[in-house]
């Protein structure tokens, strides 16, 4: 089994170098907003609705 390299997973001919992202850039701001929105949803799911624990499983 040969180890893949970056060239195997990038677009043909693409060269990738480390970049400092501009956090005021709209594209980067959108990434942060999307991630934070999804994280908030997961935090909400962690909060137990105590009323639901009283639901009776009867059938």
């Amino acid at each position: 089994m040969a180890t893949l390299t970056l060239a195997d997973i990038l677009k043909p001919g693409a060269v990738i170098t480390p970049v400092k992202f501009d956090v005021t850039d709209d594209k980067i701001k959108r990434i942060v907003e999307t991630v934070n929105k999804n994280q908030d949803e997961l935090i909400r799911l962690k909060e137990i609705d105590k009323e639901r624990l009283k639901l009776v499983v009867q059938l």
Partner: protein
Amino acid sequence: MHILQYSDDSLATALSNEYTPTEVIKNKNHFKYFKEYLGAIGLNAKTVVIEEKYISKDFIHDYAKYYSLCFVDYPKHCKRVHFFANGFSHEDFKAIIVGDTKANSAFWENYLGFIVVKPIPLTVIGYSVLKTYAQGVNFNERNFWGVRDYKVHVFGNEITYKSLAFQEQDSVLAACATTAIWSMLNKASADFHTVLKSPSEITQDADNVSNDGSRLFPNKNGLDILQICQAILNSGLVSEVKQPDSVINLHTGAKWSVLSHSYIKRILNAYSPIGIPLLFVVAVPNNDEYGLHALTVSGFKRSAPIAIAPSSEINWLSDNIEKIYAHDDQWGPFARIEFAIDHSINTPWTLFHTNKYPTYVTNIIVPLYPKIRISFEDIAIITQGLDGFVSAVLNAHTQVDLVWDVHLSYSEQYKEETKETALDVTTKQSILLESMPRYIWVSRGYLGTEKIIDFTFDATNVSHAMLGIGVVCYIGGLKALLHESFLLNEVFFKQLFRHPLAIKYYNHFIASLQ
């Protein structure tokens, strides 16, 4: 002992008893289900062997607790009905059972399992261990991760096969949730320091009285979710209760909070590697109304990762789960459940319902070993941040998006899997020699069909601690690229990681990628 050729009629005869005639058996949901499961489109049984005067450990507990005290003289002996995929005569079978089991292994490979028939009215299906359909652990195979090896003794011959025990709810001594817990404990008790109890003991563990204040036995009111968790706790495990994330409109106009398909699949994918079946609380159609019911989920079928075009939303490998397999005590074992429209699922309750009203998952109860303290949601929050960061680094240069496989694992299992990868020897040795907790979370990133990176986390810590264990890159050059990218982007990282210890995570990832 009686031997019958398998047919719908012989199945009904085998499942009947003094209090439940064949006409009644034929109207039971279980008969409808077993007819398909054991019939030509299922396990394709050819022969039925009926063993009389069988002592079932589970029934004898319930018998001692309740039935022995009835005025009616219920027998304490059950019958055990064995199924085979081959045809043979009475004489053939008698010759086989006195022979060497190993020498007769070709014959015993046709053994399909058994159903215990209890000597009580109506709820006759007792401890039953039937084989599953063909199974495997790879993508595109039925993966029954919640089964275990059963050693079954048939007239002096020991046969071993994988399954998960099933029984019908005894409505006197158990609620449906009790039976679902009992099936789950059948697996958990084989793997952990967990106690397998009879249905009546589980019901007793749930509470002192029924949830309406009336007596626990006969049980008429079911168990609420809190009581289910209490019963699980008294068997040596703990529970995580998963909440709905979506709202749907029922045909009655009422709104219900349910779990979305995506969330159901993420939970299944996350917890299944530990091997404890999950309990699904489902809203099922019951005539024109809906009622809550419990299922024990022990398997699924999922397809292989596929290439997804880059997008702003995170992708989950779990979305490839196509079907679920669950024990439904009102129908049968390993019932196939498919995902339908609008977050509904197709269970036998839907398929056999006159108007085909859908079934919904309203909660998932995840039974866990107590040392597993970090939940899927804790790790999913971290993975969201990692996806934002790694996608920003890679997406402009790739044709496909990252797909995340977030799952619990035993650290020993993770190390064993590492040995099979294409990593260099030095990296493998450093992972194998690293001290890890018994349970770890793995956030694994795929690009197309290629596994490219693992982030591992301590599953036994507290959620407000820094949980990171290590980072493994499966692509040459990726480690250095990410290391440099982390060094350059502390501010961006912290916006994606709103954890109080974001700086500890930042330093951990940089150190792990060095």
